[in-house]
């Protein structure tokens, strides 16, 4: 239901000049455009464009974001170059084993940083500019960041996949590659949500960077990114099996090593259960749901 109030014409007759200023006799629309309205698309597109213009003029983030995973692949991959074959499960070599871990860890790190630009917008007051505008929904601010981070992580993933292939890790099939992209996007969505939630909840960028710092590496080490579960003591196996990163890493690793795979294949032998590929995907979707519901309250406090 939309309701329209028309205020009486302005006393001064609001002489509209060539510049087209003033308009005392405009109708006030009290209705709220929805999430699928043209207005929402327009504002989301504009906010996303801003992020891409920034990237184009300051490409350092992307360059560093591509170089870093390559260093992981080359340097960390070389660390275990000479381990006996078969030690890392079905992977032919450590490089192949590590590839899945680097893909997920890179996407995770990028998404974890998604809140930083928003935090700087808050601190510099640019966010106020957005908040005084009649946005169809302030969710467009969140969506624009998510689109940007997702696009960035797709580029990074493509580079890592190509580099791993060049280093002898092989390539999954086309459907496998699509699955890899879908898994990365699902993880990125949830983590970006968490990061944006933090960007609105924490007092400043110093605190946000601190949180990112203490989350990033521990979550990497307490996952199956660098070593299989079998290498770990039981308590760490539990931690790694509760870590959402493992549920993104293991399916990707599985499609890398198995030309033939199905959703029913077991990809992770957790201490509490065998996890199939399908279940792992469900866990990721569940993680997204919990993350997004959890940050909704945080976002609404500022963006309602």
């Amino acid at each position, binding site marked *: 239901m939309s309701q329209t*109030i028309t*205020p*009486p014409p*302005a*006393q*001064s*007759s*609001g*002489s*509209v*000049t*060539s*510049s*087209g*200023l*003033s*308009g*005392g006799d*405009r109708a*006030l*629309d*009290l209705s*709220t455009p929805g999430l699928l309205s*043209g*207005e929402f698309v*327009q*504002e989301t*597109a*504009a*906010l996303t*464009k*801003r992020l891409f*213009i*920034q990237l184009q*003029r*300051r490409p350092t983030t992307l360059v560093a974001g591509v170089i870093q995973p390559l260093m992981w692949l080359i340097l960390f991959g070389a660390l275990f170059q000479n381990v006996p074959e078969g030690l890392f499960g079905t992977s032919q070599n450590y490089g192949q084993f590590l590839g899945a871990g680097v893909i997920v860890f890179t996407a995770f790190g990028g998404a974890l940083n998604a809140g930083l630009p928003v935090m700087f*917008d*808050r*601190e*510099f*007051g*640019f*966010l*106020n*500019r*957005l*908040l*005084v*505008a*009649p*946005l*169809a929904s302030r969710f467009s601010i969140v969506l624009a960041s998510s689109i940007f981070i997702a696009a960035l992580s797709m580029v990074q993933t493509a580079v890592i996949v190509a580099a791993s292939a060049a280093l002898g890790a092989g390539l999954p099939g086309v459907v496998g590659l699509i699955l890899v992209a879908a898994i990365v996007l699902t993880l990125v969505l949830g983590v970006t949500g968490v990061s944006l939630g933090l960007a609105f909840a924490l*007092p400043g960028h110093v605190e946000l960077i601190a949180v990112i710092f203490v989350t990033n590496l521990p979550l990497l080490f307490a996952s199956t990114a660098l070593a299989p579960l079998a290498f770990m003591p039981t308590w760490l196996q539990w931690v790694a099996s509760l870590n959402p990163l493992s549920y993104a890493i293991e399916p990707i690793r599985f499609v890398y090593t198995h030309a033939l795979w199905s959703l029913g294949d077991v990809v992770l032998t957790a201490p509490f259960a065998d996890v199939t590929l399908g279940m792992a995907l469900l866990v990721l979707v569940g993680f997204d749901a919990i993350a997004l519901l959890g940050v909704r309250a945080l976002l609404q406090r*500022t963006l309602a």
Partner: protein
Amino acid sequence: MVAAVRIEALQKRYGQVEAVKDVSLTIESGEVFGLLGPNGAGKTTTLRCLCTLATPDAGLIEVSGVSVVKHPKVARQCLGYVAQEVALDKVLTGRELLELQAALYHIPAKQMGDRIQNLITMLDMSDWIDQRSGTYSGGMRRRLDLATGLLHQPDVLVLDEPTVGLDIESRVVVWDFIRKLRTQGTTVLITSHYLEEIDALADRVAIIDKGMVIASGSPSELKDKVGGDRITLRLREFTPHDEAQAAQSLLQSLDCVQDVIINEVQGNSLNLVVKSQSDALMRVQTALKQAGLPTFGIAQSRPSLDDVYLAATGTTLTDAEMAAASARDSKQYRKENMR
């Protein structure tokens, strides 16, 4: 006739600080309304409540008769808010920023180019609008910000301290532009702690102090209320103090003179409060001549808004300004302004 903006008994506190205690004002369509007060008086908080950046604790705010608390999007559509501290994305060019702003206000793509071009011409920005905004001077930034505030053709343009920190030349550009807007019938709400700015621009003014409106009306009405005219008298370019004192006691005895103060900062010139519409100026000159005292310069003027402020609060605006500046908690300030 619905008022462009109506604020009634507005209250807003941040923690222990009562930023706005009781502010009521009505802005008619087509007028330039000035909100005058020292830093920390509650001007910006009032504007933040009006522009939906802060939620009032109590009171009513309406824009064209619509409550901004109940219908924030309507308020946002109707208001063009130009904040005090301009936040630009320094990587974007001015034009890109205007395009972003246009999209945030859902201006159709077809109209966008023309409107932006109009504002670029009107504010004389064409030479630098395609440079990155990080390279802009204060005056350029302020002009760009005026453009962003006007892009969606708001009913009311809200300017928070539009000339603070600007050089004289840029200030004149901004003043001229606001005058131009008034002739076009745009309603403007402007805050300032510069008396001469409000005096020069505003049709009506509300003087605000410690979160309360202490006087309101047209600048002329307010000055009449304070009463009397002011005469500034210099006996010599730099008058010796004893000579100034002699003149002081002489002039004090005239019945048209209400008060005489020696202004030591201005070379011992004399500031007189005299009955308005009287022949005080002539009588002062005659009295000086008869007593054999010289006259280097003498000028009569109406009371200033500073006199209005002084009469209402017992302190000059400049002194209040200094006191507020030293009491200001910058961390608290940052917190209030961050969302």
